[in-house]
């Protein structure tokens, strides 16, 4: 059967990893808006060694938005916050084996949601990360395009 997306994207869309919410998360990020057609929530749990021990997502959006969030969570768990901050939309796309050109923004959404979750964690715990320098936490992706 032919699909709109490659096998890896379809796998993450049909069998998304880490769906849900974390009880007492250390950081929460929400990016996007229903008006624009996609909105992601990413939550993280971070241990005393700054390692992300859990990451969950909820996404309103198309197949590639769901797959991008699912993939992003798998790329965060078990990594330090600094390592997670190195994730970009490009690395998410690479890991997914590519997205159609009009769907690139879905991976951008995932990158922003991750960074917002980490920013929330950093704010609450008084931490500073080089990877957050220059990050616009005011941008919630909810401006009408």
């Amino acid at each position, binding site marked *: *059967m032919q*699909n*709109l997306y490659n096998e890896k994207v379809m796998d993450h*869309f*049909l069998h*998304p990893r880490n*769906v849900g919410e974390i009880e007492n998360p250390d950081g929460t990020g*929400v990016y996007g*808006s*229903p*008006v*624009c*057609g*996609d*909105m*992601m*929530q990413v939550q993280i749990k971070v241990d005393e060694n700054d390692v992300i021990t859990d990451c969950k*997502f*909820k*996404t*309103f*959006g*198309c*197949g590639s*938005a*769901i797959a991008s969030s699912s993939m992003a969570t798998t790329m965060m768990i078990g990594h330090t916050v600094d390592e997670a901050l190195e994730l970009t939309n490009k690395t998410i796309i690479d890991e997914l084996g590519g997205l159609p050109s*009009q*769907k690139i*923004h879905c991976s951008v959404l995932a990158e922003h949601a991750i960074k917002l979750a980490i920013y929330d964690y950093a704010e609450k715990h008084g931490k500073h990360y080089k990877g957050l320098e220059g990050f616009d936490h005011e941008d919630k992706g909810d401006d009408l*395009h």
Partner: protein
Amino acid sequence: MSAERTVYLDYSATTPVKQEVLDTMIPYFTENFGNPSSLYQQGLEAKLSLDHAREQVASLIGADPEEVIFTGGGSESDNWVLEGVAHKLKKQGRHIITSKIEHHAILHTCQYLQSLGFEITYLDVDQEGFVSPEDLEKAIRPDTILVSIMFVNNEIGTVEPIKELAAVAHKHGILFHTDAVQAVGNVKMDVHDLGIDFMSMSSHKIYGPKGEGGLYLRKGVRIPSFIHGGAQEGGRRAGTENLAGIVGFGKAAEVAEKNIDWHIKHCSELRDYLLDRITAEIPDVIVNGPHDHSLRHPGNANVTFRYIEGESILILLDQAGISVSTGSACSSKSLEPSHVLTAIGVDSTTIHGSIRFTVGDFTTKEDVDYAVDHLKEVVARLREISSMSRPE
């Protein structure tokens, strides 16, 4: 992966060619291959077949055969009328009136005409997609040269009051065109009674072949040719005729005319059953389009599923062998949501969760049951994943 069943619920996108239509077409590729312009036997026979097809299409819409011109499809007919009238009457005026919910074959042609200096008024529609004759009356100006309003909307199935709208235009001496691609075969019509000047038609929406369509051009109305060349179609549309396609379109029209009562009853019953089950069994849904189903395309259902997005619904249904379409921005290259749903005022936070289902002649009750059973699962599954909050 293969689904246990294939359920096609997108008859407004296109229809399969009916077997009797295909059987009629086949000889025209091989034995009856003549060029209708040729003056020997094969050509003369081809010309007879062409004339027969013209009678079949004319009969379906209540036209005289010489008022039907074959074209390469609905989009060509739309482009031809708009550009033709604009070109012919540009000294008289440069204002055209249409609606906000037209097909892109109309809207994009209007944008092109705007780039050439024409002014276009896009009429609003009400919450069910109806264009009001009063609004049309108010929009008419001394320099208005054409009114073009679709007969049946392709997304939400609204059947526009074409007779009333045409009467308003004619009261002011203005030509009236309707894009009837979704109406032909689905709505009983008599073009003379409607009093319209032009009507665009498509073959592949009525179980005929793709790449074939027609234009009804009222007797006495003339517009310049769109395709220049030979003297085919009475000198009005050049190019060697797609004879097999035209014969197929003719046969499809004949079958549609013969079946129209059954077709309307069959489709509207299944559509109503589909909507009844969806609204009874799936929470938080909104039905878009006319509530009075006598003013709605018989096979059309358009439903918004709150808190989830249409393309993801579409793909999951496709995994189960079910074909539908969506007005979500994510499914369009422009990333803009459906202009039709926007025009009828669907809330911008729910607009992306809209799905169009269209049933047709080959749809069965079992198909509808299979589709709704899977739809329930798909909607529940995506709502589990969704970040949009909903009341518990």
